[in-house]
């Protein structure tokens, strides 16, 4: 275990009756990092968080906090405050009493806990609402109360379970920067569970992507986005074009794959373990790394003839939807300037091409 590790999951498994929610999980959370656990519903991300909080006991394996096993500790003996999706603010207490609650449970004197609570209310810019009923606050204000309530004990780690899912889009973006700044200023380790790619990628230092109780990939947002490790991740992120075929030739520097859409090559430093000839291989290329041309480009390695089936504006860029002769959909994302000279009428025949170094092999499973 490394010196800067705060939490480690060692062979952790969680079963509910016959259903395995989390399968043999090994990973570490570093001190002071903002870690996002992402996946679609039912992937085990919330169960993972709840095991860390002590709200579920692992069926097997060990969870360590600062090196000490915490499996046997009930949640009220851990310092792992959590922010709930529903926020779980106490409706029978006012804002101040909600924030003071955890301090009261620690036996802090009244004057001191009032002062500490007000500090955090002030920091979250909700001091003026201190004596209000929780029900009288807006969604964003309630969010800040929930954060203040969890952070008032100045913990080493804060667990967040989709805390922004109830907010509207504009408020969500604002709260994202509040959260990110808060994490940077306090240095508290944040573990943030979400199904939203934009939330995870905009805030987190590292992202854990889960599917069906299994960790598919752990890495920085750039690493995961640039090189999805598995087909699931590539699909889930939705920003890669995916091709599957048989390996024709494989060497340390180059792999050629025969796909229904043509012969594709990948190479460069993207081959930790080169596949063998005859294997089935799946390769991906980001929609931003693909290029379009009217005539067949010369000298390019990966060329796929396509027809335009649609176009979508996404702010500064546009996504062009194309179809190969075999009906395989390919997306190309470009700035409006880059697309300016191209005929993009529906049915127009074009060529998609990209460099072998922009392709990546992914694991099927």
């Amino acid at each position, binding site marked *: 275990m490394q010196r800067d590790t705060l939490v480690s999951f060692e062979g952790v498994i969680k079963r509910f009756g016959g259903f395995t929610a989390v399968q043999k999980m090994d990973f570490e959370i570093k001190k002071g990092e903002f870690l996002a656990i992402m996946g679609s519903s039912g992937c085990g991300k919330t169960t993972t968080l709840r095991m860390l909080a002590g709200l579920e006991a692992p069926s097997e394996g060990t969870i360590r906090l600062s090196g000490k096993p915490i499996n046997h500790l009930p949640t009220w003996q851990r310092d792992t405050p959590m922010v709930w999706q529903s926020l779980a603010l106490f409706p*029978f*207490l006012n804002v101040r009493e909600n924030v003071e609650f955890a301090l009261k449970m620690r036996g802090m004197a009244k004057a001191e806990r009032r002062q500490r609570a007000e500090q955090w209310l002030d920091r979250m810019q909700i001091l003026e609402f201190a004596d209000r*009923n929780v029900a009288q606050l807006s969604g964003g204000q309630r969010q800040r109360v929930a954060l203040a309530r969890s952070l008032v004990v100045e913990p080493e780690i804060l667990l967040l379970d989709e805390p922004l899912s109830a907010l509207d889009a504009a408020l969500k973006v604002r709260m994202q920067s509040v959260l990110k700044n808060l994490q940077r200023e306090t240095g508290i380790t944040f573990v943030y569970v979400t199904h939203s790619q934009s939330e995870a990628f905009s805030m987190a230092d590292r992202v854990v992507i889960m599917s069906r109780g299994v960790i598919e990939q752990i890495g920085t947002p750039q690493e995961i986005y640039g090189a999805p490790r598995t087909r699931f991740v590539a699909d889930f992120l939705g920003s890669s074009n995916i091709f599957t075929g048989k390996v024709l030739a494989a060497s340390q520097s180059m792999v050629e794959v025969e796909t229904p859409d043509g012969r594709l090559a990948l190479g460069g430093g993207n081959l930790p373990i080169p596949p063998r000839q005859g294997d089935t291989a799946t390769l991906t290329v980001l929609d931003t790394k693909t290029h379009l041309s009217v005539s067949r480009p010369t000298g390019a390695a990966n060329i796929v003839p396509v027809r335009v089936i649609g176009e979508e504006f996404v702010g500064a860029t546009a996504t062009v939807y194309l179809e190969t002769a075999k009906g395989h959909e390919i997306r190309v994302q470009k700035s409006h300037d880059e697309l300016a000279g191209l005929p993009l009428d529906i049915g127009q025949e074009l060529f998609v091409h990209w460099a072998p170094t922009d392709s990546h092999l992914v694991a099927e499973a």
Partner: protein
Amino acid sequence: MRRAISLYGLTFSLPLLVWQLLFFVFPLAFLVALSFWTVKNFTMRPDFDPVNWVTMFGKPVFWQAYGTTVALAASASALASVLAFPCSYAITFKLSDSARRWAIFLMVIPFFTSYLVRVYSWQIFLSDAGIVNVILGWFGLGPYSMLNTPGATMVGYMTLSLPLVILLQLFSLVFIDRTLIEAAHNMRCGRLRTVFEVVIPSARVGLVIAALFCFILTFGDFVSPVYLGGGDPTTLSILITDTTKSGQQWPRAAVIALTMIGTLLAVAFLAVRFAYAGQAKGARK
């Protein structure tokens, strides 16, 4: 602009209106009127004389009975609430869904038999040569005289109200948001403390309403204080029957009944206000 009363609307609202007038407003009005009648030579005469109110309110025995009745009903409410809470708590939080349905069903079973029958059967248990004393005798204890004591009255009151209090508490506890309990645990609030810090405040309205029902049921109860309590100390319900028997004093009995209704209205009003006081917190500002 209000719409004129239509025949259609009247068809459906009329039965309710008639029912209300016939069985609530008229009897109550009659009771009020009756309380001003006078009795001479064992015969009642319609009158408008406050003498009954003056006489009853001037009698120490009336105020004694009033105090006894309020104290007994209040004790019963407190006792029933305290006895019921662990039960309703366990049913809510410790049982599986199907076990909870069975427990609720079992709570309904006591209502299958008449309350009077259940009180009579308590006599068999509590009398000097009753089942309880016989069993205690095996261990060389007793006999204790239990029947005709305020304690026996309380046993009767619990028979009357406990299942209902448990059910009412249960229905407020099951609606508690479980994440609130988890959140409390997560903030270092242990199990027992969570009951006082989160569960009871969350279920406050239901718990108060349950206690209120117990108060209403026991405040006017005649069966337990007579058949288990032996009529001593005298409660207002016993005082009413005594008053009607002695010299046809129906008007004075009406005074007692109206005082009871007034008391119950006041208690119900205060209880509901108290129940919702927590929710109004901060709303005034």
